[in-house]
């Protein structure tokens, strides 16, 4: 769906809804997202805010815990991109599936993972989402079919296509949503996965978070085209570009994608224009972008913009948001306490889950044979 067409459709619907609900939406009367502003219940609208604020503060608290040495390794913060995950996940049902890139904290939280286990995973604790096996980049949520964050760029796209293949074969009324960055669109696996999803008409939503940089390299240096959505056109795939800093526009676009896929039309490509406010990871000197540019994007903060939108539309007043903010702070304080208080995994569990049945050879080869009483002891 073209951007113009989407705007017209939503604008028309929104005007009707606006009169019915009596909400003012003067600023965005004709823009994407207005439909959702009027269609969603107040509690749902506030829930989107709460989730975005939770992610923002979760990330800020994570950075702080990283500085304290509670979190090690590589920590990729989602600050600035919250509206993409929250809007997209809002469009999913419990039967739907999700695979993401490694910048995955926002998705884990948006799909319903408790901040406690997520923080515990970052701490490497036994109570983490994978008991400390994966850490920051490899979160999961089994009940919601969140098959994980994947740290090989574009490596998870064929897996998403395969999940879609199974959904189609099993005739399930569900989609697989696959999240990746603009950097992934230049990799071979991206093109293979899109082609296969297109030729087999699989229910896969390819959601590209275009934050303009593949780690430390701006996309104009590494992508032949500036619009990632145009790459989907090579596979005759339905594609649209959406403002990823607008949570309601994001939700509407994702909902269109879900409906398209569930109607049996094949895959859908969504390019969400967004920006990460912080470095690629905690160890990023950010030599590749101007401070002015960062400031410019920060002035369009998706969370404050949404809060202003809801206040202006009369959904809630400042006091309501302050109350939500306080609750989120308490929730995160509890999450950090939980992570801190949780035990580390027992080192002996290193051998668990290599295969379905433990294979002694694996244990022996890991050097445990000396003092073990295994078959070769």
């Amino acid at each position, binding site marked *: 769906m073209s951007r113009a067409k989407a705007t017209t459709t939503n604008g028309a619907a929104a005007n009707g809804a606006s009169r019915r609900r009596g909400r003012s939406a003067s600023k965005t009367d004709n823009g994407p997202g207005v439909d959702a502003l009027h269609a969603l219940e107040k509690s749902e609208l506030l829930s989107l805010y709460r989730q975005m604020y939770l992610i923002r503060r979760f990330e800020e608290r994570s950075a702080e815990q990283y500085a304290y040495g509670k979190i090690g390794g590589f920590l990729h913060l989602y600050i600035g991109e919250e509206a993409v995950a929250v809007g997209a996940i809002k469009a999913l049902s419990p039967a739907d*599936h999700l*695979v993401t890139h490694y910048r995955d904290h926002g998705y884990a939280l948006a799909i319903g993972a408790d901040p406690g286990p997520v923080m515990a995973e970052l701490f490497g604790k036994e109570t983490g989402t*994978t*008991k400390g*096996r*994966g850490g920051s980049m*490899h979160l*999961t949520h*089994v009940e919601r079919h969140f*098959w*994980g964050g*994947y740290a*090989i760029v574009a*490596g*998870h*796209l*064929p*897996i*998403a*296509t*395969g*999940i*879609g*293949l*199974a*959904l189609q*074969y*099993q005739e399930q009324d569900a989609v*697989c949503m696959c999240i990746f960055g603009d950097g992934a669109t230049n990799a*071979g*696996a991206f093109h*293979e*996965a899109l*082609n*296969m999803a297109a*030729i*087999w008409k699989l229910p896969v939503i390819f959601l590209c978070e275009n934050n303009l940089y593949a780690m430390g390299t701006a996309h104009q240096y590494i992508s032949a085209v500036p619009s990632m959505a145009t790459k989907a056109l090579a596979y005759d795939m339905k594609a649209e570009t959406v403002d990823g800093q607008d949570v309601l526009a994001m939700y509407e676009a994702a909902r269109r994608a879900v409906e398209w896929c569930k109607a049996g039309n094949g895959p859908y490509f969504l390019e969400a224009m967004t920006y990460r406010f912080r470095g690629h990871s905690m160890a990023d000197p950010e030599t590749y972008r101007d401070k002015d540019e960062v400031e410019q994007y920060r002035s369009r903060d998706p969370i404050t913009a949404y809060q202003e939108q809801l206040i202006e539309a009369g959904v809630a007043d400042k006091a309501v948001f302050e109350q939500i903010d306080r609750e989120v702070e308490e929730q995160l304080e509890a999450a950090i306490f939980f992570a801190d208080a949780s035990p580390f995994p027992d080192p002996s569990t290193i051998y*668990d*889950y*290599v*295969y*379905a049945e433990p*294979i002694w*050879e*694996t244990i022996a*080869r890991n050097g445990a044979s000396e003092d073990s009483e295994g*078959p*070769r002891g």
Partner: protein
Amino acid sequence: MPDKLLIEAIREGLFQEMAADERVIVLGEDVGKRGGVFRVTDGLLDRFGEARVIDTPLAESSIVGVAIGAAINGMLPVAEIQFLDFIHPAMDQIMNEAAKLRYRSNGDFECPIVIRAPYGGGVHGALYHSQSIEALFTHIPGLKVVAPIDPYDAKGMLRSAIHDPDPVLFLEHKRAYRALRSEVPDAPYEVPLGKARTLREGNDLTIVAWGWYLQEALAAADEFMAEQQATIEVIDPRSLRPLDSDAILASVMKTGKLLIVHEANKFGGLGGEISAIVAEDAFAYLDGPIMRIAGPEVPAMPYSPPLEQAFLHDKHDIRAAIERLAAY
């Protein structure tokens, strides 16, 4: 029991597993209408339809990746890599995803895929159609690697592999497809993964060989035994990871001598790992050096017949090694 070719045994196994379980699907290059480059999957499309026998683009990374995705979502995919030489683009999917899924999720996810691939030389396939690269894969914890050469083993191990909850790389020696036959029951049966098969029992020397070279090793051992008093134990590991180290160690503890024969080059080959296992755990039982017959240290199998022949070993080479080792 009827005699069947290796290719017939594998095909029959695929038919029976697909007929028995709708979760089993086959995907790969030319596996449908063409029936596979070697015609292993011939007839599957007619019997099971396009939804279950899927002709894929020439994109190995995604053939394996799609199989992984389908598997974690409840299917039992059997992916075919047309030649093992073509598998390298899929290495990321195999090593980083398939082999890690159970581990990374602390047991929440599993990846019950089978990747079938013809391998091995001696068919004038040259640089990109001859490789024996099993050692690249046996190095990967979380992955299983099997290389049955006997048609009976192949059918039974294919069934085991398809129903195994972990990813299995299933290697089929292309030179053997239409050259080897054995008695294969019509009904489905399982041969367990991780168990070696002892083809000759003996007391004086152990040969561990797999793939096409097993035939050469058997011929060499039989000739030697016909002329000498000594007896040779010949073991086909069949499963390369997990490796039946117990069977190999027990045999070496009995015979005191070990000769390992494989088609892949020697340096970093699986023969080195088997040597190390024996050296670590049966050193005191050894009466001679562990010996290996393996491919030369060249990056590919050359095409020209004399060059290809120079790469390959046969029963005479193995016989000579037996003589040398027996003299200790």
